[in-house]
Each structure stands twice: as C-alpha cells, then as structure tokens.
C-alpha cells in the first residue's frame, strides 16, 4: 500500500471519481437480466478486453472502464458532438452506440491522433488558429474534422465546412476559428 502520496498527484478526475464514482456505478435497476460479456475493443491500435454489460455505451467504455477521458460526455444524446470518435475512419457519436457492437472495429479517439510527440495536423491547426476557448468540445471537434477530411469532399467553401461541422456544438462560440483551422488543414490536403 502506498503511503505519503503527494497531494498534487491526486488529479481532479481522481477526486471527482472518488466522490461520485460509488454512486454512479451502481446499476439503476438490479435485475436478473443483467449480463456481463467479454468484449475486445481495438482502440488506437491497441486491443483492450473488457467485461461489461451490453448497455455500456462506447463513450462510457472509453471513459469509465479504460480511463481514456479525452473523449468528452456533453449531452449524452447525440446532439452536441463532444463524444465524437472515429470507427473505421468514420466519425460517429460514441454516446449513441453500445461498445459491444464494435468488436473487431478500429476505433480512434483523440488520444490516438498524434504520433508520439508529433501532433496530428488538425490538432496543430486548432492550436495555431486558437480554435477553442474552454476546450470541452475540442476533442470532439478535432475528431469530427479528421472524419471530415477522410470523407474526401471536393472544393469546400466556408459554408460547406460549417454545414459539415454542424454536429459539433461549441458553447463558447469559437466557430470562426474552428472553421479557419479546419479550412487550413483541408486546403493543405491534410497537412498543418
């Protein structure tokens, strides 16, 4: 057992988790029907085997079972886009799909975009263009924008980019710089 743990190593997440975790993880209805299944997910080129109930969304599997908290929970109903990840290169809302449905798929989260210390072009562009304020929607915005690049659109105008990014809400209203960031990478053919 570890003793004398320096206080600064207790992150905000550890603290919040310790306070609310016990309550949050109790099933809403204990039922004989609950079923635990072994599910192997391939996330950012690494396999992870989880023992989870079918009702665990991909978002909750990432955040609550794998501690990959880069993917954010905003509305949890597919309306805000904060939870956007890529499945087989396509952007989706991870809150509206169950993890168990994606055995064998290639899942990419914000944590998997950089190559070592080398940021993905879209991450670098969001930094350079100041495409965020509070940052909560940013990982979803960036994953969505990477998905947009993968879709191979031709001759996108600013209006087209706004429409194609309409599944990602930014409450701070950083939209002008988000469009600039996405456009800069799009115009460079995927490079920063």
């Amino acid at each position, binding site marked *: 057992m570890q003793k004398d743990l320096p206080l600064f190593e207790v992150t905000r997440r550890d603290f919040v988790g310790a306070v609310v975790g016990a309550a949050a993880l109790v099933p809403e*209805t204990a039922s004989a*029907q609950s079923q635990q299944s072994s599910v192997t997910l391939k996330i950012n080129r690494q396999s992870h085997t989880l023992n989870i109930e079918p*009702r665990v969304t991909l978002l909750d599997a990432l955040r609550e079972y794998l501690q990959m908290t880069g993917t954010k929970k905003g509305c949890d109903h597919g309306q805000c886009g904060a939870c956007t990840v890529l499945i087989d290169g396509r952007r989706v*809302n991870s809150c509206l799909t169950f993890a168990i449905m994606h055995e064998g798929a290639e899942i990419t989260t914000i944590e998997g975009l950089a190559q070592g210390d080398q940021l993905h072009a879209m991450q670098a562009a969001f930094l350079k263009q100041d495409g965020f304020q509070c940052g909560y929607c940013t990982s979803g915005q960036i994953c969505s924008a990477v998905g947009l690049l993968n879709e191979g659109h031709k001759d996108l105008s600013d209006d087209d980019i706004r429409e194609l990014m309409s*599944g990602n809400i930014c409450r701070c209203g950083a939209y002008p710089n988000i469009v600039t960031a996405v456009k800069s990478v799009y115009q460079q053919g995927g490079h920063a």
Partner: protein
Amino acid sequence: MIPFTYNRAAGIDEAIGTHGRFIAGGTNLIDLMKYGVENPDHLVDINRLPLADIEALPDGGLRIGALARNSDMANHAQLKQNYPVLAEAILAGASPQLRNLATAGGNLLQRTRCYYFYDAGFAQCNKRTPGSGCAALNGYNRIHAILGTSEHCIATHPSDMAVAMAALEAVVYVQGPQGKRRIPFSEFHRLPGATPQIDTNLNAGELITSIDLPPVAAPSRAYYLKVRDRRSYAFALVSVAAILQIDNGSIKQARIALGGVAHKPWRVPAAEHALTGKQPGEAAYKEAANLLLAGAHPHEHNAFKVEMAKRAVIRALTVAESRS
C-alpha cells in the same frame, strides 16, 4: 437504462427467429432507451447481416440494403445521379456523425420527436402508454401534425429520407416468420387513428431487408426543401420533396410529398393529377398546394404550418422546375 440481454445475429433467419428488438445504427433506439421511453429486454444486433449493399437492379432501379448507412446512400454515385431528391433529403437530416451510424431501415423506423412522447415525465402519451391520453392536444403543439391526426395523437414522423422515398414511390421489402413480402411506400407508415403506439404496418418479428427505388422513366427535375428553426441539424417544421417531369412545355407527371405535417409522409394523388398537362408556373403550383393542404386541422400553436406548407410546395416546385 434498464439492463437487457444482447446477441449478435449471424444470419437473417437467426435474427428473425430471435425474440427481441432489432438494433442497427441505434441512434434513435439508444437515445430513447436512455430516456426510459423504449425498454427492450433483449436486443438482436443485426449489423453483421449482409444487408448493407446498394446495388443496381436489372430494371434500372436501385436496391438499398436495409443496413446501408445514410452517409453511404448520400454518397452513392447512381443514387445521386438518378435520385438527387433522395440524396438531398438525407443530407438535410441529422449530422454527419449520425448519418454515419444511422441506416436506411432504421431511418424509416424512427419514432416521433413529439416532446410529450420523448419525456416520460409526462403521464399522457398514447404512443408511449396506450390509453393515457395526448398531452400535446392541449399542450404546446407548435411542431405537431396538421394533417391525418386523430383525437388520440398529433405526432409527426421526423424523417427527411422517408419524404423523398414517398415521392419516389419506393417499395419496402421485409422478411419475417411468415416469409417475405413487399410493402408499397404509401402503405408502410400509418396514421395514428385509435392506435398511435403502432407507427408502421410491419408485423411482429418482420425485418426490413431492402428499400427498392423504381427506375426513373424520363428525365425529371427534383428538389427537397426543408424549412426549420435553424439552418442546420434540426427537424423539419415543414419539408417538401418535389419531382416534375416536363415535356414540351407542359407537366407530364408530378410527385409531391410533405414532411413535418403528418404521422407519415403526406401525399395527395389529386394534387399531383391536377398538375398533369398543366403549364408549369405559380398558378398550377398554387392549386396543387391547396389540394395538398385540404382538410388541414391545425392546433393552438401550429396554424402557421398550413400557410408555410402551401408556400413551401410552391417554392419547391418552382425550384424543381428551374433545374434540368
């Protein structure tokens, strides 16, 4: 969310033979499960069934597999070429992320976005709890239906895709415990009547396998107009799928379907026939619009939809006419 059991069907027969709710894209079903509106005890995952292809038919039509994703449909070369009104309608709906998950079959089976249905905190909803009443009738009913309603339900069907498919006279193919059958699009969704909990004419255990689009007979001009509270990522207040065939300066054939106004995509054959042989233009379009909205029965907050729908019909036909 209430716990449930799950299995992944390896084949169509296995899926049909399993008691439970089918799940494909899941974007609507999972949302409703989170709200406690849908509470299935078993889910049959049909995503691995071989129903995702979009293929040309020998007669020149197009077969859209029930599991084709909405984004794959909107990007399909032949679909865009021959049925542009359908591609436009799909791209007018939801967001890119949702369209990547949502399937053709699931889109048809979307439940209404009536707030009283979606929020289980309201005791009254005949669609959610049969016999409980309709809170929308005397509640806030701005987004609700003005055509084909009943005293039991004034919900609308939320799909854009289905409105275009109605105008294209698609055919829904299903397979169930009693075998296979085809359902003309106009008979797929139903009006609420006294049983608004039933959205479609699918029988228990039936699985949608494909949606077939008939061949396009002659060059046609088409447009999908969606009127909504914001420019993107919102459900339609009113929408119109308009298809015109114009030959030697007169209308040879017209197909018009309305969304956002009824429990199903709304078509009025008399309105389409009234355009046949007429000269394209506002006078003819206005007559068709009036016929489409005949019998409209608005409620306290949605009377605006009657005039909005008429103007939308005229505008959609005018834009369609201008296309070649």
